[in-house]
């Protein structure tokens, strides 16, 4: 039962990772940019919410300000940094977003100090209330809300991409930006919109992180790694981020349980188990890709 409980906790945790990873996957899918500042942008969103709650705004209400502000910041980020970087090849966006990550971390440290922050006190009983199934299984209400939000965010993005004309323009631009321009699509505004969506979802994830745990100015790096792992495990697609998030979440909770049982040494705790799964999936993908390039596994085995 303990193990089952851990798996359920992992699935619930996957919802948070899916929200965190969706923006990273979107930017990669549409613009082929790996945004190394994604985790720090999530934390920036959390600090924005913190400023508002410090002024007495309800945390849920603060989202109505934080998400649009971060989306507007996304447009700015595209116009000021990403657009110029993209023009200079594949590596430059990597460097410029890495630089941005460091700038955000240090500005946040400058302004807010190194204290651990949390929205735990802002959400009343939601922080600890749960449904109890039997004696072993506990399902936190906040975790369920986050998982449902993740499904809502991914479903919303999916509907946007498949059903709206702007969404179709985004898919077309992702596939071939030059030709998109030739049928009248302004690829710059499509890219700006994609960045806006990515930052809004990142900020949402940051606020949820603050509700379920704590955050500080340097918490972004770990979040970036989790998001990146979820995206790679899930295979770079939209719903893949939910699958990847859940796989990562389950790996981490099982890892924690294995440490608790004394089966493995606690080196990095559950995160280490997540890293192992990520590396295994990554290796499998690389090997599979290399095999496909040589004509599939049958051909390669036949040749040997």
């Amino acid at each position, binding site marked *: 039962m303990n193990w089952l409980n851990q798996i359920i906790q992992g699935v619930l945790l996957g919802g948070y990772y899916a929200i965190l990873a969706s923006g990273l996957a979107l930017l990669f899918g549409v613009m082929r940019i790996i945004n190394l500042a994604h985790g720090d942008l999530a934390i920036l969103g959390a600090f924005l919410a913190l400023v508002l709650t410090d002024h007495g705004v309800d945390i849920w209400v603060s989202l109505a300000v934080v998400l649009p502000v971060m989306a507007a910041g996304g447009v700015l980020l595209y116009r000021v940094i990403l657009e110029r970087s993209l023009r200079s090849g594949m590596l430059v966006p990597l460097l410029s977003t890495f630089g941005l990550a460091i700038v955000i971390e240090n500005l946040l440290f400058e302004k807010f100090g190194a204290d651990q922050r949390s929205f735990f006190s802002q959400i009343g009983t939601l922080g600890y209330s749960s449904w109890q199934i039997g004696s072993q299984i506990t399902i936190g209400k906040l975790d369920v809300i986050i998982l449902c939000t993740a499904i809502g965010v991914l479903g919303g993005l999916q509907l946007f991409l498949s059903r709206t004309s702007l969404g*179709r323009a985004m*898919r077309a631009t992702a*596939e071939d930006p030059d*030709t998109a321009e*030739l*049928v*009248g*699509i302004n690829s710059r505004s499509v890219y700006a919109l994609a960045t806006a969506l990515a930052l809004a979802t990142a900020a949402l994830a940051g606020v949820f992180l603050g509700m379920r745990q704590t955050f500080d100015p340097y918490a972004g790096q770990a979040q970036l790694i989790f998001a990146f792992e979820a995206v790679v495990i899930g295979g770079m697609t939209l719903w893949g981020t939910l699958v990847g998030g859940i796989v990562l979440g389950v790996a981490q909770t099982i890892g924690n349980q294995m440490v608790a049982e004394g089966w493995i040494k606690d080196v990095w705790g559950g995160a280490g188990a997540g890293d192992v799964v990520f590396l295994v999936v990554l290796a499998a993908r690389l090997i599979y890709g290399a095999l496909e390039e040589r004509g599939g596994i049958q051909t390669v085995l036949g040749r040997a």
Partner: protein
Amino acid sequence: MTLLAVDGVDARHGLLQAVRDVSLEVAEGETLALVGANGAGKTTLLRTIAGAHRPAAGRILFDGRDITSSPAHKRVRAGITLVPEGRRLFANLTVEENLTLAGRAGRSGPWTVDKVVETFPMLEALRRRRAGRLSGGEQQATAIGRALMTNPRVLLLDEVSLGLAPVAVEGVYNSLRSLIERGTTILLVEQDLSRALSVASRVACMLEGRIVLEGAAAEMTRDQVVEAYFGLARGRRNGGPA
């Protein structure tokens, strides 16, 4: 009346100069065929007119307005649409999505998805199929249809018959003829000389980035064009082999 004017345009790919000091005019309702060997600069010239390639020098005027610095999507809105070489459909989108996408981003006018399907009846059964799974001829029909959805005032067609089965080429050219009859202004790049001469009202021949021959299609003999096409006249003039 001149609808499109290219004025002293140079276009480069890095150090390679693909288009050298080209000037030409296309009148409203006219069909101009641009012919020439591989590497003569036809595709680059077309892409420069469409805004997909920045010219190094010269101006492009559309309806009397200088559009040299406006991006491709703005030119589509003004009424210039290119059917690019190799069709370049959005493979992950359905035929209908490819069409509606262009309709949304372009100008208002007579073209709708239904009208395109009426013009290219083979698309009727394929509306929901992904563009990546079409045959070459079907893809070309979709690509032309997609361009028409923007309701262009001038349609730029780059090698629409390349890589198609003869019967598909016939189909594409039949629909082109009906477009021309409706008064669509067309600038057409074609390697097949007789095809080009059969639909065009005027022909311009490019050689090594320059226009070396230009005139009414009816007044031009095949031999004249062939000579310009391969640069034979120049070769003789310089005392080279004929």
